């Protein structure tokens, strides 16, 4: 597989063309924006957190195939996760796209396809945009005392 094919795996293009979890939630919700100023990508995450779990998550925004596919994968992956599990997943994904670990299909599912990003340092920010927004959203969750 060439590095280009590895980056633009069918699974990524599929999430890009048919994004999961696209839309917004009705209040009450946690909303977090994420921007990539150099390329103009933006993601807005909506989270509904209850009983220490992410009950629902949606995203809006615009951007390249990698940023949008990554956000789409995020909505599937964190649905129903506890806050601790979400934190752990963020760290796993960040390490994966930076090439610090190999993608484990068993635990990461579709997200493992983001591993190809590690060959393209300028695209790491695209892949991490939604995950950094989630990190910020979880801070809001803590500030608002929704952890339990």
């Amino acid at each position, binding site marked *: 597989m060439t590095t280009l094919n590895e980056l633009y795996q069918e699974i990524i*293009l599929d999430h890009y063309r048919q994004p999961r979890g696209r839309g917004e939630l009705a209040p009450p919700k946690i909303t977090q924006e994420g921007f990539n100023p150099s390329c103009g990508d933006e993601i807005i995450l909506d989270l509904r957190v209850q009983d220490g779990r992410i009950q629902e998550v949606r995203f809006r925004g615009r951007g390249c195939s990698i940023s949008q596919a990554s956000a789409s994968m995020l909505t599937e992956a964190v649905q129903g996760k506890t806050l601790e599990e979400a934190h752990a997943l963020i760290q796993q994904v960040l390490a994966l796209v930076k090439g610090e670990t190999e993608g484990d299909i068993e635990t990461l599912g579709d997200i493992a396809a983001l591993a190809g990003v590690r060959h393209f340092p300028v695209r790491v920010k695209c892949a991490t945009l939604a995950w950094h927004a989630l990190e910020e959203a979880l801070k809001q969750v803590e500030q608002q005392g929704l952890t339990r």
Partner: protein
Amino acid sequence: MTATYTLDAGEIRKLFPFFQPHPEMRSVVYLDNAATTQKPYAVIEAVSHFWAYQNANVHRGGHGAGAKASELYEAARARVAQFVNAREPAEIVFTRGTTEAINLVASSWGETFVKAGDEIIVTEMEHHANLLPWMRLAEKQGAHLKVWRITDDGRLNLEALDCLLTERTRLVAVSHVSNVLGTVNPVAEICQRAHASGALCLVDAAQSIAHMPVDVQAIDCDFLAFSGHKAYGPTGIGVLYAKRALLESMPPYQVGGGMVQMVRWERLVWSEPPAKFEAGTPPIGEAIGLHAALDFIDSIGRDAIERYEHELTEYALARLQEVPDLRLYGPIPDRAGIFAFTLGDIHPHDIATVLDTRDVAIRSGLHCAHPLGERLGGSTARASLAIYNDTQHIDALIDALHEVRRVFGQARV
């Protein structure tokens, strides 16, 4: 293609180490010249020679090396003055770049002469460097920022300027060449209209300085700014040209060493311009590198550069329009060699990545001009030319764009 070209870019590439084979580097078709140009041997050697054998601080040392460094630094200033046809070297202030030059004007001139209720006109196509200093100044002073909108084909309409200018207008800030659209703005006419209304005019020449003759007296601008690194010179050096009388009337920008004649507890006497605006040790090696860069440009000739880049632009426009689904922004055909485009629904960042794997270097995004990006509907991919590019480079770009379409053949969102 049977057209003949007035310049042999292959010969010019021989003057640049970047284009020579190197065991650790892949050969790249470099089309990101609006971001920064490559550096010829002559510039690298001039800078290297200074650091190696002539290094000393300027205007200070009680020794020969200091005097020599001062002489070289002032010779660079005189060379810049000649290059842009300033009346005297004292009209040239060295800065870190275009951004700092414009911030200097906004802070020093702006906070002195722009009052509450005054107006500043900026164009919709400005780079943040010629936009944010004015937005911040307007907010600080309680002045109004008026936006000169572009036409749908990416030009400025002079009649629209006449409608915006009032007796409260203090400044019109305009780029000579748009860093996204490639539009070449009629800056002399704009200055004339601004002056007729009692306003000053600042020209951002970052994208024109290396590509066409720039004559501050012919334009009759009050301020003009550019960067060395987009003109084959080093980073960290830029130029502010300002009319002498304006520099005399403006307070210092930063204060410190090298810009003051006398310091007593009860009294300060600033130096004369340009020293008044150059606090601290200036970028000496970088100024010397800029001198070499301007010599390099003039060794080819600015008319010859403009003619050749125009020929190459015509070729690029024709070939880009062959690519299905490619949408080109900015005026056609009358424009500089900067081409912002989109390709169907494929995101520009994805275009740039596929091109990168084919060793074609372009930029994608909003190009530090977010309001213009909003007007155009989001990010764009951008290819931009310099004197060492040729038709083969354009052909490589076009081939790579076809590859992008293959990779994203079905992409629809």
